[in-house]
């Protein structure tokens, strides 16, 4: 974690504090400038500058040939991206939110990841699907989907979930360069959050499948990603007041999953809580939990706990929504329970 403003990067440049939104914008601009086969397509990405302003200024810089507004036709333009990738372009397809990717589900899970297998390895699909994912604030059931477990379930897709501006920039750039379909699930509530990022003249690539320990601790491993990372950091401070030292493991990528970092952390703390923004049934936490108990059962001093959404469609009412979402109180209780505190 970066804490000091203006400190030197490993290569000597000055790190700066920028927003998650700016970090994504820089990643897009750098990749568009680097490779003429890269283009950005989606609803309102050009003239409106993106529904969340992630593509601000890109139309002016790269022109309408490469920054392309679409009609509201997610299935159509997601499929267009897959077809363009079949013949060598490297599309970045923006979903205004991943809740809307559900109308393009067939293209994302049936065409993009299956092409390589069913063509006997002749057609790989170098495409990036990106956009905000996960519950935001009082958007109601249709606009609050956390889609990571749905997409991580499809073989052939890679899924990452950055929580900080640095991770957002580094993971998106890596995704664009990957020769497979990659989903960059951005955290809707974190677009305006700030963090330290290397200067623009330093190439920042963060590999898919590498988790990061965001805070070291010794008593319990809190495994989290995307919007649950700041939640875990806040809870860790509260746990510290009760003499419980929490280690925070940010998965960063859901698929591929960095088992080694997870196992190393849990082997040290012997206790694990998984806090995820998605639904409990067949959620990301279920898979992580399975892998921990399967591989390092003897290291565990307590059953693994999961904190997730409640298993109901998202209500609009603010108080009810807060109840349904993972929150600090639920995470505190789970962490204390595994520590028998």
């Amino acid at each position, binding site marked *: 974690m970066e804490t000091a403003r203006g400190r030197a990067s490993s290569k000597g440049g000055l790190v700066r504090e920028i927003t998650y939104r700016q970090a994504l914008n820089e990643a897009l601009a750098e990749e568009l400038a680097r490779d003429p086969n890269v283009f950005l397509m989606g609803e309102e990405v050009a003239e409106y500058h993106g529904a969340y302003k992630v593509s601000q200024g890109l139309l002016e810089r790269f022109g309408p040939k490469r920054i392309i507004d679409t009609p509201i036709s997610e299935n159509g333009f997601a499929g*267009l991206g897959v077809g363009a990738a079949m013949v060598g372009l490297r599309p970045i397809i923006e979903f205004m939110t991943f809740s809307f990717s559900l109308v393009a589900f067939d293209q994302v899970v049936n*065409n993009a990841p299956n092409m*390589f297998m069913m*063509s006997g390895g002749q*057609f790989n699909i170098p495409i990036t699907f990106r956009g905000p994912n996960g519950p935001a604030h009082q958007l109601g059931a249709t606009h609050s989907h956390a889609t990571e477990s749905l997409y991580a379930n499809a073989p052939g897709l890679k899924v990452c979930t950055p929580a900080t501006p640095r991770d957002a920039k580094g993971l998106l750039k890596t995704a664009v360069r990957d020769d497979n379909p990659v989903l960059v699930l951005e955290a809707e509530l974190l677009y305006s959050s700030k963090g330290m990022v290397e200067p623009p003249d330093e190439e920042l690539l963060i590999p898919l499948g590498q988790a990061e320990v965001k805070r070291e601790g010794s008593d319990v491993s809190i495994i989290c990603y995307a919007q649950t990372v700041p939640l875990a950091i806040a809870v860790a401070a509260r746990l510290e007041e009760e003499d419980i030292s929490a280690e925070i493991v940010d998965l960063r990528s859901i698929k591929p999953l960095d088992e080694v970092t997870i196992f*190393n952390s849990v082997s040290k703390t012997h206790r694990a809580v998984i806090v995820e923004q998605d639904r409990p049934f067949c959620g990301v936490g279920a898979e992580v939990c399975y892998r921990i108990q399967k*591989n390092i059962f003897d290291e565990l001093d307590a059953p693994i706990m999961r904190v997730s959404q409640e298993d109901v469609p998202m209500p609009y009412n603010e108080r009810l929504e807060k109840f349904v979402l993972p929150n600090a109180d639920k995470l505190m209780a789970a962490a204390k329970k595994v520590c028998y505190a």
Partner: protein
Amino acid sequence: MQRAEQRDEVEMLALMLLIRRFEERASQQYQAQKIGGFCHLYIGQEAVVVGAVAAVRDDDYIITAYRDHGHALARGTSANACMAELFGKATGCSQGLGGSMHFFDKKNHMYGGHAIVGAHVPLAAGMAFASKYREEDRITLCFFGDGAINQGSFHEALNLIALYKLPVVLICENNLFAMGTSVKRSTSLKQIVDRTEGYDIPGDIVDGMNFREVRDKLSEIVTSIRKDPHPAFVEIRTYRYRGHSMSDPASYRTKEELEKYRLDDPIIRLRAQLTREGKLTNEQFDAFDKKAKETVLASVKFAESSPELPVEKVYNYAYFKGPIEPEWKRREGAPAPKADS
């Protein structure tokens, strides 16, 4: 690379014969249980794809639905590679990983073989988008059945294709039945071509039992598109002699209807035209037929004697550049990584 825009008619007749004999042999091999899954035969429709291929360049893109054996053969994929694919062998055009519905041949610009009805029409939009993006004069031929025209992906793609003025020829192979449901029972229009009016795409109706009519209409369209990229739509009226798939006895239509179309057989028709004009003798025709039968018989032998991919290779086809999760090997009982402290 570029051939004459119109190819030798006798050669095209021989190609139609090859497709006919291939499908007959595939039917026999399916009944002998050498071929698994679903198998949809093209018998009766040969003049559609051969007429279209005769009008385009070798490097134009071709993409189709699941009744795809004829398209691959017409594109130049060998009978050996096609039969081996049906047999699931490593020497198949998709290495035995795609099967009957997923024939791919990148070298010959055959982009599949797509089995979700209508889902490949957006892919065609993407391929044509790439041609325009790279300022190439390649044209995309997108084949689909009458069943596809009521799918959402078809409509979204048509709007995008028209909006972006993409060089796509949309070829509706209207064989009157979507599986067992006749066009009259599936579509709210008197004629399918009227669908294009809603998208401002020029449309034509073509007799698909007449090779020359298909080729000439396609040549006219292709010449126009090469001058200035734009979409076009042709409803090609054809008939499949067999059921929807091998398991379909086609009890939803009468023997009389089938006989009526058999009398108008596309191969007999072109043969009669060429004979009348003194371009083909009976002996030559018989020699072509004999050669087609021998080629297909040899393809069965080739398929039978070909190897299958070893099972462990399956992991190489989930992601380009190999498995992304080396831990799949570690999952069962391997030692867990230990922390230092």
